[in-house]
């Protein structure tokens, strides 16, 4: 069920009314669990079974890890958890990619092998809930947490509908304690939650979906583009993917808050980042912190030789790229970010002490350079093939003599949305969204929100079934 659909709005209103009318906390949690399964089943009912497998397996394996004294057995249970979760993820998300690459390899070796193609549907949100349940068992294996005492709470943690299909990736330690005490959203929580939902929906419907056709008109055709069109398409995609994904996260956080639950932040004005480590402290925080805690640090993190640190960075980012999709272009996207991070570390060593870099104009310049480099990486993220990405990069670097085909109003839309997004990010880079919002007088907030609701309503009535969020595919 899409957040930007009328069916969800009716569904959510009904959930709010029913859950607030329930006095028993256990009954409320059971109700939330039930409607979370319903929310997921609205897309494809049989895939709820995968959720059950993941929930039951990790619940029991985590308990077994905790109660076992033998290191060998603990490891065995951990591997079982990894095997089940990554096995499901691997089959549904990477099986075709693996087979296709194997076929290409065998053909390059002269073997004529043509396996039957597998028609596999990727279950929505599998990458997100797999990482959630994995973090639970790994934390218990590391003895950094103890198994939770209530299965209902744990099942709700895995399935909670606001963050089920596209995050934020919530840690058990953040969510489960919230299930312990009976609670209801306070009036302030409910109102701020509603405000966040409006902002998120606006980002998705009024900005991301408006830019989507422009991005498609540039990226879905693998021909060369003019310099202006190529940059317009890439800038539009940079804004689209931010507004799409941050929009989803903001709606999820707001919806959870309306129900009395607090979810982690997922974005912090990323296009105002100065440098790439700063970018990853602002972009998809729940994934980057997950990769940091469960991959980068176990690999050795930065507490080893320089060379190994660089290797760890590159490996983490490559796997981060692969997490986004079963395609070499995603791996290259991750690899590019890995190399950006390594390069930044090297440059920091040489240039950091110089005062010049701390000046305001230089900060803006560095921010702009970071944004441009991020845009180049987005090309691989969005392009459907290396050929398309290569053509796009060539066009963006002025190696194409094509004339511009994008209509003027599309170019103006890209300029407007990119300018506003970058401006807002820069202005708010050292503030939280709450601080930024609290600075505005009530009437101005009302003016902005009223106009946003109108834009959402107008877009949703014009648009129909709603465009799916980009991160559903990951």
């Amino acid at each position: 069920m899409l957040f930007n659909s009328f069916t969800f709005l009716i569904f959510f209103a009904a959930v709010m009314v029913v859950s607030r009318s329930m006095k028993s906390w256990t009954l409320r949690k059971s109700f939330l669990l039930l409607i979370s399964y319903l929310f997921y089943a609205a897309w494809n009912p049989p895939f709820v079974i995968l959720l059950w497998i993941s929930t039951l397996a990790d619940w029991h394996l985590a308990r077994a890890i905790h109660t076992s004294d033998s290191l060998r057995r603990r490891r065995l249970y951990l591997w079982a958890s990894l095997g089940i979760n990554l096995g499901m993820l691997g089959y549904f998300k990477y099986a075709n990619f693996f087979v296709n690459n194997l076929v290409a390899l065998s053909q390059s070796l002269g073997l004529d092998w043509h396996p039957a193609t597998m028609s596999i549907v990727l279950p929505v949100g599998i990458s997100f809930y797999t990482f959630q349940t994995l973090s639970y068992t790994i934390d218990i294996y590391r003895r950094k947490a103890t198994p939770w005492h209530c299965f209902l709470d744990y099942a709700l943690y895995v399935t909670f509908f606001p963050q089920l299909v596209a995050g934020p990736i919530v840690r058990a330690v953040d969510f489960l304690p919230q299930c312990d005490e009976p609670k209801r959203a306070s009036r302030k929580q409910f109102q701020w939650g509603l405000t966040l939902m409006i902002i998120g929906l606006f980002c998705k419907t009024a900005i991301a979906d408006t830019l989507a056709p422009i991005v498609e008109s540039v990226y879905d055709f693998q021909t060369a583009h003019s310099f202006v069109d190529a940059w317009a398409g890439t800038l539009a995609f940079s804004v689209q993917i931010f507004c799409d994904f941050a929009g989803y996260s903001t709606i999820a956080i707001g919806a959870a808050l309306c129900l009395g639950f607090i979810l982690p932040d997922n974005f912090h004005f990323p296009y105002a980042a100065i440098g790439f480590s700063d970018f990853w402290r602002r972009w998809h925080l729940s994934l980057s912190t997950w990769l940091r805690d469960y991959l980068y640090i176990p690999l050795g993190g930065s507490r080893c030789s320089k060379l190994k640190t660089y290797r760890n960075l590159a490996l983490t980012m490559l796997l981060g790229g692969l997490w986004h999709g079963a395609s070499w272009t995603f791996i290259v996207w991750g690899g590019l970010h890995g190399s950006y991070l390594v390069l930044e570390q090297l440059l920091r060593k040489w240039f950091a002490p110089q005062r010049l870099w701390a000046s305001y104009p230089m900060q803006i310049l560095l921010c702009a350079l970071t944004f441009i480099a991020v845009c180049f990486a987005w090309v691989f993220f969005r392009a459907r093939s290396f050929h398309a990405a290569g053509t796009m990069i060539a066009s963006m670097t002025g190696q194409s003599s094509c004339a511009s085909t994008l209509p003027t109003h599309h170019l103006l839309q890209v300029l407007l949305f990119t300018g506003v997004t970058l401006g807002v990010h820069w202005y708010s880079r050292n503030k939280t969204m709450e601080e930024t919002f609290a600075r505005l007088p009530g009437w101005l907030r009302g003016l902005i929100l009223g106009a946003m609701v109108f834009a959402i309503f107008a877009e949703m009535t014009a648009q129909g079934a709603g465009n799916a969020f980009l991160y559903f595919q990951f």
Partner: protein
Amino acid sequence: MPSSISSSNHRLPKIGYRAQWLTGAIVFATLTLGLSWYYRTGPTQAQAGDSVYRWAIEMDRLMAHPAPKTTIAMLGASRAQLGFDAEVFAGEFPDRPTFLLAMFGKNPKATLHYLAEENYSGTVIVSFEPAWINPSPGRARRESQQPLVDIYTSMFGNLGKHEKIANELIRAKLQQHVHAWNYSCWKSLAHVLKRDHPDAFWVDQPSRQRKAFYDRFFTPAQLEQQYGRRLAIRWVTPQQTPLWKTQAAKEAWGKQVATIKRDIDAIKASGGQVIFVRLPIHQTNRPLWDEMVRELDVDSIHFLDIPAAREIRCPDGSHLNHDGAATFTRLLANELKHHLRK
């Protein structure tokens, strides 16, 4: 234990919400009611606007039909959506469920290809134009129905279909009763008419047909005066000899024709039938059409071959209005009776 929740999540902005919600409600109500008033006092009519999702629902109904052999899929672009009267057609062929899969500004090659891939065994009537065979890259980009097919297959396949259909029904009701009056209806038609005249409009029908109303606001004399230059071109075939300017253009055309022919042959092999139709337009390259249908080896009907169709006027030079659509559909149905498989 590692935690990803920052302390900021626990902070709520220290603000009062009364002024915010009050102002927000006033702004929203003013904008919505203002727009409602603007549209309702204008000449537009409340309707459920056409969309890619309505196209996808129509395609879904076609693909799920229990007797596919009896079905008729009408493909095309704006000329078909404005010029094909689904109600009249259904009256002529009550036992042949018809699905209008035409879409404004989008040529139907991708849809034809999809039906061929799905081994469709019904009848496909394609409102086609020779210019679509080998369009310029820019036109090929803008005017493909592939995005519609993609939305149908990715979002309207079996997954989440019912939820999306429910959403579409709610949206249609809201359009008709609250935010109805599709803003783009007069704007787009004004574009077709090459003049910003808000009085010309169309009304989207449940069948996805668009009934165009020009004459309600223009008398034929005014239309002649307004579009005289274009209307003066009556069923003209431009002199273009030879059909292709260069050998390369001919080869490129040949390649594209072969691709379309494969799809036509695939539908025929599945037990289906394909009929290409040329709907009325004031300027038509007849020799190119004849060459195209010869190379495609496809059953075809050209409006110039129906004497009465020559008398129907396209108010803008290239699209029928609602009256013309009803008249032409009756004529087409009569002609089709000789072509349709029993």
